[in-house]
């Protein structure tokens, strides 16, 4: 057991830190305009890629560095420490592609995903298929060398800015519901794709709904075998829940620092209750980080991610939402009168953390199954 960096890891961390300190765009977190913010995120993706920091744990043949997943964790951690823009989450889409795609598809799709030339979204949920994802109704009917897709997707985060979509659709209406689904790689510019932003409770267009009307997809853009869609989707969400592919620890630490500053500005640091609450938020973040380090270690030692990801997902949602409660308690009325700009939005943004990527209740079902509780 060793939580310290190896010599190689320490060297990587040091040079990353130096690079970040001279490269992070000043004032990136003060940008109000959403389009401008998206442009900056894409630019940051390309900057990371050019410096060799994208796909650290990806195989070299697909543009990665072939390093252990520990390096993803280090990147995540340092970006949080130095207040860098959010890391692009290419991990889970990439995972689906290099686990299930044919060689030609890998060469076609992985490099531009990694470089940030092409951005992706995930077309899984539907109005009538949320937690019960396998009941999805969007159909893909085979018509010669194309599939013709019809249906509606929801909660397609980043759909309005994405170039491509990892889409689930029913290819065999007669098969049992988990068996009749296939996965596709589809350009969002195809005729018949219409994307409408969904404004969440914060007032911001955080996600989107996408309508698919007779969209034609070449057969060679099916990912995996017909009927393999469910398995691909489960792999994807498992990695989405996993520790290193999503920058949640970095984000959490950054927000905690802001909340601490908020308490200081308001002269609340002498109150034992405030001090305890801030320390508790620190403990939650540490527990989350340490749990993720253990999962990362299991991954490094060759174990594929499993239901332990559900533990981290639940811890993350709880930490994130509790931190927003703490900010709300510190700000008091100012969060409701518009004086403390942005915090109400952050609060509402923390609410769906226990819904997306499998709701908290679904995660608990997964854990109950892992505990082998009766069905």
């Amino acid at each position: 057991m060793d939580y310290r960096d190896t010599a190689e890891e320490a060297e990587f961390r040091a040079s990353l830190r130096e690079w970040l300190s001279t490269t992070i765009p000043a004032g990136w977190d003060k940008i109000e305009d959403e389009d401008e913010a998206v442009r900056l995120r894409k630019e940051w993706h390309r900057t990371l890629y050019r410096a060799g920091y994208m796909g650290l744990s990806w195989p070299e043949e697909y543009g990665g560095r072939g390093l252990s997943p520990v390096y993803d964790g280090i990147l995540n951690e340092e970006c949080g420490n130095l207040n860098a823009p959010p890391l692009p989450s290419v991990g889970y889409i990439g995972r689906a592609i290099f686990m299930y795609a044919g060689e030609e598809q890998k060469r076609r799709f992985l490099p531009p995903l990694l470089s940030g030339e092409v951005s992706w979204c995930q077309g899984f949920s539907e109005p009538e298929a949320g937690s019960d994802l396998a009941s999805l109704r969007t159909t893909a009917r085979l018509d010669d060398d194309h599939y013709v897709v019809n249906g509606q997707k929801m909660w397609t985060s980043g759909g309005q800015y994405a170039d491509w979509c990892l889409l689930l659709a029913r290819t065999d209406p007669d098969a049992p519901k988990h068996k009749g689904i296939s996965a596709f790689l589809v350009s969002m510019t195809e005729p018949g794709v219409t994307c409408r932003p969904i404004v969440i409770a914060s007032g911001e267009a955080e996600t989107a709904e996408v309508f698919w009307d007779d969209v034609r997809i070449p057969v060679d853009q099916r990912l995996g075998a017909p009927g393999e869609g469910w398995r691909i989707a489960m792999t994807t969400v498992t990695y989405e829940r996993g520790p290193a592919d999503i920058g949640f620890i970095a984000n959490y630490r950054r927000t905690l620092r802001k909340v601490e500053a908020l308490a200081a500005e308001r002269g609340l640091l002498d109150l034992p209750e405030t001090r305890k609450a801030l320390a508790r938020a620190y403990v939650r973040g540490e527990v989350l980080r340490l749990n993720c380090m253990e999962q990362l270690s299991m991954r490094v030692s060759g174990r594929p991610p499993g239901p332990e990801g559900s533990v981290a997902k639940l811890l993350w949602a709880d930490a994130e939402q509790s931190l927003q409660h703490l900010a709300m308690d510190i700000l008091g009325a100012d969060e409701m009168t518009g004086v403390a700009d942005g915090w109400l939005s952050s609060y509402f943004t923390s609410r769906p953390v226990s819904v997306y990527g499998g709701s908290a209740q679904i995660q608990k079902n997964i854990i109950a199954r892992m505990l082998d509780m009766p069905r």
Partner: protein
Amino acid sequence: MLALLSDEQQMLKEVAAQLAGSAGPANPGDLRTLDRDAAWRSLAQSGLLALRTRDDGRPAGSGVEVAVVAEALGAGLVPVPYLGSAVLATELLALAGAHDEAEALAEGTARTGVLLDRDLSALAVLPGDQTVYGWDVDGAADALALTAVPGGHQVVRVSLATGFTAANGADLTRTLLRSDGPIDAAALTPVGGPLSDEHLRRWEALALTALSADTVGVMRSAVARAVAYTKERVQYGVLIGSFQAVQHMCAEAYVQAEAAASAVNYAAWAVDELDPDEALLAARTAKVQCATVAREVTETVMQVFGGIGQTYEHIAHVHTRRALTDRQVLGDEGVHLLRIADVRLTGE
């Protein structure tokens, strides 16, 4: 970075689990009949009491090994003073350079406990006329406390033979003695050399971590017992584990216990690998997490067991009592949150 037990540590975990499995109660009634001395002898023979004795100045076993054993004994609710004698007292003696005394404890022939102040939150500093408790002193003739000396503290030995009476301790698996004082200077026998503040921070880091590991064991085995029960208990014609309400209770308790374990693993590693301040911060973090969830997890377990889980004959409350006592010993979450805040918010 590799945050996993090594193969040797994994083996130790299995040995400790095996030992603990046969030495702990299946029912509270077993606490009257268990052969505690036999359990202590087998711990001594396996070398598990010697982990904090020093070998060329280095501990024979790291904080990780201590935590592995403490967790196993917690999981088995084993009624032996491993924490009191083999960890808390032995580490104090070793830090003070009283190596012969530490060795005697490791052999299992002598046992020594610790004296805690009235709210159990710290080692007692004597002489004084305040109430003190001898905690986890089963079979111990004496217990260790501190006395202030210029530039630090001195470890002192206090006989438990006079002035101490059995306290009505909540934890049925540990012996708690009480003295309402006074304990005067003549009753204190200095052991070893003086301890610096750094020594005491190191000691506290190990002590908090070992206690937290015990709590993790208590919680994990309690959750495992509850989950097993949901697979046998039938109501409305079905196993109660098939009800989602019950599944979610168990899942929540499981998540909390696992989260606590993650914090403890890191603290255990930090004990001997990081500087005392960092090790202590990690230990406080683990203690906060364990103390915070211990009550809820063990209460959930009692709830899953339903009516039978509320009775004295059932094992559930033995878990609860041990976890709740662990929570108080050397400070509950409130105490350690404030200390963490001092580090985080004022850089102390």
